[in-house]
């Protein structure tokens, strides 16, 4: 199986789906001539021309809305936000239109659209550019929310998202683009709403998505040296959420730590914790732990930025608390 980068995987997914369906087009800032701010759309303009790879000016509300309108009447837009921080300028189109039109129209108009782009803190880009809005979108009925952690998941899930009949908010890890993984060639679709065990273990379940899966893998390696075997479950999609796979793992280990890079208050991990305590009450040997970023806007200085985000040491500490080792 070829080892490719997360960036390349996303590129392949879009390329293949555009080959497959002439109604799929890409629109966003710098997606064409510049080959993408993060080079995810590299080469697509050359392959598909300006008709299908559309460079938009800085008007997120406008081009997100254009995507919704085009989707109503039969196209399948992929709208790229240069980062999800800028999706806030377009959130009205996503929440009030894309998510509502199917229901408002009594089921006449569904909106097959993908809103995609990098999400989560990057490195030293400050408070307005380092945010994780998955909880915002996961809150909204009518949307699907996908957050792949590996190149394999990125490709399989993006292909599925493009074929989905509904609006999909597809949030890529801004710091994951260079990570690599074995990715099967060609047609491998990963269904939305199916979690994936990223590491098997018997002692404790770590639930994490996107970049935090990698932090958990590192923490698990460190903990294994102390004889603690972590199971890492990656929901991959937050809405719909595969609670059964998550709960099966938690029932097996009896302990659970939920790790997310977003803020703690009303963070998506709180919903996961609720579901797990409800489904696994009888199996739990300790209260469910959460690890989140600190409850602050992201500072710029590197030392503070590292301190704010969940680090391996924070996950290790939470695991030990859940195991009553500290």
């Amino acid at each position: 199986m070829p080892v490719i980068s997360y960036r390349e995987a996303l590129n392949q997914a879009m390329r293949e789906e555009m080959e497959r369906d002439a109604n799929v087009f890409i629109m966003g800032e710098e997606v064409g001539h510049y080959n993408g701010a993060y080079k995810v759309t590299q080469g697509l303009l050359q392959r598909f021309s300006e008709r299908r790879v559309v460079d938009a000016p800085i008007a997120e509300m406008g081009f997100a809305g254009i995507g919704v309108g085009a989707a109503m009447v039969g196209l399948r837009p992929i709208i790229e936000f240069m980062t999800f921080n800028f999706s806030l300028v377009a959130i009205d189109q996503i929440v009030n239109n894309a998510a509502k039109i199917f229901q408002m129209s009594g089921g006449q108009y569904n909106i097959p659209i993908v809103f995609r782009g990098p999400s989560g803190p990057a490195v030293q880009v400050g408070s307005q550019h380092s945010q994780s809005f998955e909880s915002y979108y996961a809150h909204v009925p009518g949307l699907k929310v996908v957050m792949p952690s590996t190149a394999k998941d990125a490709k399989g899930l993006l292909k599925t998202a493009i074929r989905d009949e509904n609006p999909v908010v597809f949030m890529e890890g801004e710091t994951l683009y260079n990570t690599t993984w074995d990715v099967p060639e060609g047609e491998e679709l990963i269904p939305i709403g199916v979690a994936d065990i990223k590491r098997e273990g018997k002692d404790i379940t770590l639930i994490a998505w996107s970049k935090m899966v990698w932090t958990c893998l590192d923490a698990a390696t460190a903990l294994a040296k102390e004889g603690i075997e972590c199971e890492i479950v990656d929901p991959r999609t937050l809405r719909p959420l595969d609670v059964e796979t998550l709960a099966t793992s938690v029932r097996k280990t009896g302990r659970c730590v939920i790790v997310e890079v977003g803020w703690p208050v009303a963070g998506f991990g709180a919903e996961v914790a609720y579901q797990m305590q409800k489904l696994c009450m009888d199996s739990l040997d300790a209260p469910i732990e959460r690890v989140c970023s600190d409850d602050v806007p992201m500072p710029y200085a590197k030392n503070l930025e590292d301190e704010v985000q969940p680090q391996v040491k924070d996950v290790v500490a939470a695991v030990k608390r859940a195991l009553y080792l500290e």
Partner: protein
Amino acid sequence: MVAPVVTASQTTPDTKRVESDEQQELVDTTTAELAPLYRQMLAIRRMEEACAKAYSTGKIGGFLHLIIGQEAVCVGAIAAIENKDYVVATYREHGHAYAKGVAARPIMAELYGKKTGLVKGLGGSMHLFDKPTNFLGGYGIVGGHVPIAAGAAFASKYRGDGAVTLCFFGEGASTIGGFAEGLALAALWKLPVVLICENNQYSMGTPVYRSLAVEDVSLRALAHGMPRDRFDGDDVVKVKRRIAEAVERARTTGEPSLVEVVTYRFRGHSMSDPGLYRTKDEVEEWRRRDPLNRSRQRLLDLGFPESELNALEEDVKAEIEDAVKFAEDSPPADEYFPYVIKE
């Protein structure tokens, strides 16, 4: 049928400017006026170069947007206002902060992420703020700060304090809602704000002709009955004079203006952008009109002694070296919780 006011045109390196070199007239000035403006531009240039150097060695991180080539706009415009007036800017704002009176030391220390930084290492390059000089900040979401500038102007009108707000943004911002709404409200309520579009021809890798149907940003004022102006931004004195007209109008009548200043950034959009979308010739053409060289030559033409000019340049060099040393020697940033909610 009503004829269109203006038709869109494809831009070429020669037509981007408002006036050709021959058409440009010398604006009257004195060495007493020009020397300090030149000094500011030079200090900004040297500071930006020092930032680029520190970035390449990893001492500055994140996004770093340099203003090299555009210095005459912020320096000329801010020279036209008083201390009590406000400035609101984008992420490309080191020069604006400096021109408003912020020292090089805290700017440099901020970029280094140090405790002694202008905003304690919390904001970095894109988010300089300084209450003592009424510098209301550098903002990272394109267009989002335009209504904020209108808001400061609203407060000035409300209080009748006679202050004027300058709001800077790129031509790429002119397509976003924040700009459109800020413009509409400023016009409707006659808020004393001067909206200054620093048209540097590119929004990241996108040239103006691919982002605007009509390339003249200042025309947008017409729809709101707002005064507008448009000129080339390489003569710092000219920038000062023309912005002063808009400031005077805002101060005396409360009338806002939309002013487009045509300029050029010599480097990429940010440090991570190699700027491959521009030809070498185009960049050279604009470097030939470097606003710093122009002002330097003008000073000499006006009889400013070369020895004094050299002394001024040495002084600037020392100032920036000192700022870098200050940043290097400062302790790291160390707190972030105290500024989430004011008690």
